[in-house]
């Protein structure tokens, strides 16, 4: 059971505080913040104990989401609950940031009130919660240059506006009751995290893909939806059929609401999505990449004088020529004492900056067509 839940900003400001059982004093927020900021780098911060009060916290959106308890509960349950709370906050407020939490604190209190009673989790399902949540979300829409770049000449659609993430990502799921039925939309995204380690000789040493199919649903009620996957999809290493360059994953897991009765024969997922964001399928693939990695980087580093490092990067995009990679960013670790940097980039829409705090330089490319090759020269002063 949970004694208190609180949300702190990274600077320690109290954004949300709710005491469920009256067992611990309000002081514990400050105790927590002192403990978490005093930790050294190698100490695990997830669980901390002060007297007989345990703090379990996750960091999401730059905020501390903390639960305190006096019992010895399952860490998995508490961590997953805090993650779920953050996800719900994101669903209801549109985005997850200090600002959105500050602006929507009444809504978050309302959510917490329905989700947890006397320290026990009651429900976290959007379908049930939407009947009880009355507060409307205040969404903050920051001014962004990105919006401007979307507008083509004379209103023509640019290629970017076709594929650029729509505002849906940061829209609250509950449209205000006044303008009934915002848009009835549902978004299906496939997100893959590729981790690849390439040896200095260019050999692929390790590769690992974690992918998921994510749905964001704005429909108040949604009837059954059928998602057809590639029929040649194979699961597991053993059952490769014939010569086909079949789509293969090592392992996959489904959301519990997904009905799988047609999955084995037709590779069809049946799901009745509830409002908000949910991951309906997760899969992973280790060791063998089905195709070449999307990018290849050829670095060369020269130490010029005593205090200057020349980094020359050549980056090739191996996607098919029709596709374009958007918002590519490259992080290059630099020595600790780097002071300043000058760069030569191949086009003006790219940016590069030195981040001394992270000991890295960040090179960003907004558009990168398949088959193209870009190069950049960085001159880092130490």
């Amino acid at each position, binding site marked *: 059971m949970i004694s208190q839940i609180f949300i702190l900003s990274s600077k320690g400001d109290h954004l949300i505080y709710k005491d469920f059982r009256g067992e611990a004093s309000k002081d514990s927020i400050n105790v927590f913040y002192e403990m978490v900021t005093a930790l050294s780098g190698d100490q695990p911060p997830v669980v901390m104990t002060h007297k007989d009060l345990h703090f379990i*916290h996750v960091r*999401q959106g730059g905020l501390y989401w903390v639960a305190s308890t006096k019992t010895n509960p399952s*860490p998995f*349950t508490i961590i*997953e609950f805090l993650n779920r709370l953050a996800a719900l906050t994101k669903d209801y407020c549109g985005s997850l940031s200090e600002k959105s939490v500050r602006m929507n604190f009444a809504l978050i209190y309302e959510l917490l009130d329905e989700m947890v*009673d006397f320290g026990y989790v*009651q429900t976290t399902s959007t379908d049930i919660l939407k009947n009880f949540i*009355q507060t409307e979300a205040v969404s903050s829409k920051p001014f962004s240059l990105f919006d401007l770049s979307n507008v083509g000449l004379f209103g023509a659609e640019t290629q970017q506006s076709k594929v650029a993430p729509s505002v849906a990502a940061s829209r609250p799921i509950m449209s205000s009751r006044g303008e009934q039925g915002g848009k009835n939309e549902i978004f299906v995204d496939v997100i893959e995290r590729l981790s690849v380690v390439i040896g200095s000789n260019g050999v692929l040493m390790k590769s690992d893909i974690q992918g998921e199919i994510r749905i964001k649903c704005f429909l108040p009620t949604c009837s059954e939806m059928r998602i057809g996957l590639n029929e040649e999809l194979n699961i597991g290493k053993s059952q490769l059929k014939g010569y086909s360059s079949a789509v293969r994953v090592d392992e996959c897991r489904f*959301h519990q609401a997904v009905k799988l009765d047609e999955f084995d024969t037709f590779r069809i997922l049946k799901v009745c999505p509830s409002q908000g964001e949910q991951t309906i399928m997760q899969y992973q693939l280790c060791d063998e990449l089905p195709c070449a990695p999307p990018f290849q980087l050829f670095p060369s580093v020269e130490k010029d004088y005593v205090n200057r490092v020349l980094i020359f990067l050549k980056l090739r995009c191996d996607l098919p020529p029709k596709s374009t990679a958007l918002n590519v960013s490259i992080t290059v670790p630099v020595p600790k004492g780097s002071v300043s940097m000058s760069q030569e980039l191949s086009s003006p829409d790219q940016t590069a900056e030195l981040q001394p705090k992270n000991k890295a330089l960040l090179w960003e490319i907004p558009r990168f067509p398949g088959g193209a090759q870009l190069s950049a020269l960085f001159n880092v002063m130490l």
Partner: protein
Amino acid sequence: MPYFGSEETVKELKRALSNPNVQADRLRYKSYITKVIRYMTQGLDVSALFMDMVKASATVDIVQKKLVYLYMCTYASDKPDLALLAINTLRKDCADPNPMVRGLALRNMCNFRMPGMTEYIEQPIVAGLRDKASYVRRVAVLGCAKMHSLQPRTEIDGSLVNELYALLRDPDPVVVVNCLRALEDILKDEGGVVINKPIAHHLLNRLKDLDCWAQSEVLTFLLRYRPRNDDELFDILSLLDPFLQSSQSHVAISTLRLFLHLAAAHPAVQADALLCSSAPLLATCGAASRELRFAGLCHIQQVMRSQPALFNTHYKRFFCGYSEPSYIKFRKMEILVALVNDENVALVLEEMKSYCTDVSAELAQAAIAAIGRIGRTYSEKCLDILTGLLALKQDHITSAVIQTFRDLVWFCPQCTAAVCLTVESCVDYPQDSEGKQALLWLLGEHADQISSAPYLLEVYIDGLKTELSAALKMEILTAALKMFLRRPAETQDMLGRLLHYCIEEESDMCVRDRALLYYRLLQRGIEETRKVVTGPKSDPSLSVLTSAQEEPVSQWVSIFNTLGPLSAADLQLHNTALSASEHTDDTADTELLTEHVPVSMRDVSEAGVSLCAGAAVSPEAFEQMWQQLEVLQRQTVCFSGCAADTLQSALQPVHIQTLAFSPARALPWRAYIYSRGSGTLVLAELLQDDPEMLTVTIKQQPEHQQTVTAFISVLQSVLQTLNTGQMSV
């Protein structure tokens, strides 16, 4: 800023809230109430507004109602007299036709933490328990627990408890789980809610209707239940089986804990369950949330205590990601070290090597130490890597490598020569205290193999005056003395200077005492000193015995899926102390010999002495006896080596127990075995430092020559059989 001039802010809010114009404008009124809550969250004391907020609670706007209730729950304990004014409104709401309003009012009324509340809430709670809306029943059930917590010392209301037990059969799943929670709270002094057979089976059958949070909680409650017999046990396990693979990691892991707990008497079932749930456990290690990843890693470490090989094929999952925080990297490295085997050692070392040059010095040092631990088995490959690292001439790396060398030499005496050669040719010496101490230890211990040792030591002795660390000074003293015993001609002069300085000028008491001790020792004569300082040490290679032991699942199951594995060492220590007290029986030395000698059916001996296995000997007890006893017999046997489990299964039928052995293909390879016969305990060490020959060392307690002869002949025949078996293959 709310913290400065806070009185002004409160006054202003009060003025606004009592302004009739504001009250008339609903939106403005609400925005002021929102402001009050905002200040409350920020830590400003707005309790002075209680009266105005009570007035604001009489509204039809549910959002406003919720905000005001939140305010009232926070300050009710400070202003009990004013809070009573709000109760009327709340009680009226408890009879509202809208179940949402009823539930809301009841929940918040129960949340008022002030004395004397019980008399107002008792009646609405009892009514709420019988409400037709499940939402209200959920609230009312937890209300019972809240009511009890308000007056913890009052007598438990029997009828209420019975009603709650009856509500366990409620159609709404959340009501059922809330009943369990409420009963647990109310009956805490009596040991919590009773899970008997009907309740347990009812809960198990409802399990699939519950949501994931309720599932993991019910699974925890079910830990209390003990099935009557095996049939019931297996029925329960088959009901639980699908949940082991649940897509919610916390449900899967709670199920695993219950499985391990219920099947305590069936190790094979436990092993199956662990195998089954290795997929969800591994999935948590790849989760997007790094906190979840950490929790998963900590629990995998627990599982590996009894099933070290379970994750062998998945070792790549434990390679560190570039952007992972270091606390996750540390855990992953610990797991990787434990997963190393013949097939993956090259890749793991390659990966570890890349961590050694990490920007974080702590991480780099931990990686170097990890390579050292792998080096205890695969010394050659690791020595190459470590030597290569010295060439980087980074202070923190050099220091860590030298420290690792020291440990490696201690655990694997066979790599001494290589280490000494490296230290000799090393040009860059560690600068920090730990690194210097390690270097000094190596110099002193192996002065005869490092030709430049006296010159290196001299630098430290000359710099003694500026040295601050007492531990380092002691290390210098010890190293100088050891070196003097081995290379007196080169060391005598500097040892004299050192002792003189330490006795006459040193201010640290410990260092001075140590110097005096060595001085007096030397006065007794060189031979005496040699006996004391370089006398026989405990045999470090015996650590095979204590390391790599597969612990029984019961050792860790009690802390599985709790905060224990995640939090700092103190909690873990506490828990191991607890579990140790439960298992004291197998460490008792006396029990070792009180064997219940069963009459051996298959008499394998020649001289009429039969061997039997008897009670198990714990590694600790074995180690203790091995060090105490004298060697009785030593013999070499022709043996070309075989897999450890083959040997184990070959020895089992002839009543010889295998206790521990080094990993396959390590050289020297060791195994420790024991057996009993004629009331004695025979301990034996098999040592293979030549690929063809095996040295058998035998110790016995108490001595009985016939048994030893029988033991050797049995062992020889077994090894012979294994040899011929291998030839034919």
